[in-house]
């Protein structure tokens, strides 16, 4: 469960202070499917980075699974990122010199998992995303959709609670984008909390809960009743 209370995030640009996040209070239950929309510069990416512990709030409290993560040290935050959070990026961010399997293996390596225990997890993660026959390909030998699927496999191989997706379909053609979104939604069906930032209203409206940001504030927090609601939202 994610609980943000009175989160502020200020940036100093020249002699001006920009309030990227301005008093954001938000609770997201485990297993929710949330989309964050809003114009450029509205603070949605900042919010996502903050949720992913890539950024620290200027003030406010952030509790992840009843633990105040803003109080954690860099090392502890890295551990939380490794175990409880998965990232999916618009640019995929695969390491080009590593094969698909090696890219998926990275979080496990960083977690210090023994090699013998890593292999079956990697095989399973790739297999779940239909990439078994691509595991020894380098990213440049894969299509965009395949790359994003590798990235999703990497994000989920540590079985995190939360999956953060930043414009996951932004660099994909329509069909691949649809595939990727369906995969993410299937993961959500199995219980993972899915939080997705998107420009695309069509994508955003698929989410059960839609947040809209404007000038660093959450101005709309809406439940989409047209979707199936097997997982209750707050």
């Amino acid at each position, binding site marked *: 469960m994610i609980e943000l209370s009175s989160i502020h995030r200020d940036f100093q640009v020249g002699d001006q202070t920009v309030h990227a996040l301005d008093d954001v209070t938000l609770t997201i239950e485990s297993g929710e499917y949330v989309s964050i929309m809003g114009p450029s510069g509205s603070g949605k*990416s900042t919010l996502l*980075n903050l949720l*992913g512990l*890539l*950024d620290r709030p200027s003030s406010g409290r952030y509790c992840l699974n009843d633990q105040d993560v803003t109080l954690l040290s*860099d*090392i502890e935050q*890295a*551990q*939380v*990122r*490794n*175990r409880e959070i998965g*990232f999916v*990026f618009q*640019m995929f*961010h695969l*390491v*080009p*010199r*590593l094969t698909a399997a*090696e890219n998926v293996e*990275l*979080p496990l*390596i*960083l*977690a*210090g998992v*023994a*090699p013998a225990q890593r292999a079956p997890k990697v095989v399973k993660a790739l297999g779940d995303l239909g990439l078994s026959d691509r595991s020894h390909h380098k990213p440049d030998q894969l299509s965009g959709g395949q790359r994003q699927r590798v990235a999703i496999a*990497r994000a989920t191989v*540590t079985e995190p609670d939360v999956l953060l997706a930043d414009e996951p379909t932004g660099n994909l053609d329509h069909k691949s984008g649809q595939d990727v979104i369906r995969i993410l939604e299937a993961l959500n069906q199995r219980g993972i909390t899915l939080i997705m930032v998107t420009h695309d209203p069509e994508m955003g409206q698929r989410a059960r809960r839609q947040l809209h940001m404007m000038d660093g504030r959450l101005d709309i927090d809406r439940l989409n009743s047209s979707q199936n609601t097997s997982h209750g939202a707050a």
Partner: protein
Amino acid sequence: MALHSPDIAWFSWGALRGYPTRTILMLIAMAIGVSAVVVLTSLGEGARLYVMDRFASLGTNLVIVFPGRSETAGINPTTMMGETPRDLTLDDALALTRSYNVRRIAPINVGSADVSHLSRSREVVVIGTNHDMLTIRHWQLAQGKFLPEIDLDRASPVTVIGSKIRDELFGAERALGKWLRIGDRRFRVIGVMGSEGRSIGVDVEETVMIPIASAQQIFNTSSVFRILVEAKTREAIEPVKQFIIDTLQERHQGITDVTVITQDAVLETFDRILGALTYAVGGIAAISLAVAGILIMNVMLVAVSQRTAEIGLLKALGASPGQIIILILAEALLLSTLGAITGYLLGQLGSWAIRYAFPDLPAYAPAWAVLVALVVAVITGLLFSLMPARRAARLDPVLALSGR
């Protein structure tokens, strides 16, 4: 969250292979630094050993006596002419044996004379000396015997010839037992010098040796050119030197008219000078190592900024700042170790080439230099990567990942 070392090695190796140009450039920089140290110190050490060896072949614990004083005490016609006030004689030489500290002596007379056998004739350096000369100078005989152990003042018609003289006068013929003519006297060949009997000043291969009394007859002189005195021990050299000066002063009516030099003093000076030279060139070469280190720092900095996205990604995947530092340092360590090994091999190849080109020069890099070069290479590689590694660890993942 401890990284497994094989994983660190695998990741660093992958990073190095992923950027071959950068890797090869840095390897070359490191290798040049290390090989420079290895080659230059091997040159310095080779020169030192070469000179030491040459001096050692003069003989050990050697004191050399020659007539005349090397210090100029006022200007007079004789100093200008370089003439000596009083010659050394065989009796002087004999007197020098009367000390417990003196093991053996060898008086020398040198001149040149026509040496002939049948129709072949040649102008040759003739050395008049005694039996002990062979031992004092560490010479090797190729065939036969050296000059006999006879009284210094007894002439004897026997000669020991250099191998080159033998080749020129006798060709393929057997020389031992043959007679040859030196000046106007006949001598029987009783021995042939080995070719390794080379030393500074004299090329034994091209000389002919006869008993000193015979040499004095040929050159019609009663003087002695040099007296070599071998002290019993290294410690005995100074007492022997004093003993020689005292004895000869007494025999020459209280005038010190000889110069006594110890070869060890010369040797030590050369040893010191050339040793210092080796350190100096080693030090100069070490500067190239430092330059390589700075290059590594620059290239590592570029690497970090090139791989901003990758480092940001690692952070997003849960790499702690410590892990990032370890990964970057491991890369630098791997790189500088590979560079050092390459440089070591290159350096050994270089010194081998020097030894091949100059067989007389024992150009082997001293172990300390190799060790220092390797250790300094690896340490500079690590040290200069610390800054880039910390920069990578501090990298803001948000910015890193949003780049482009």
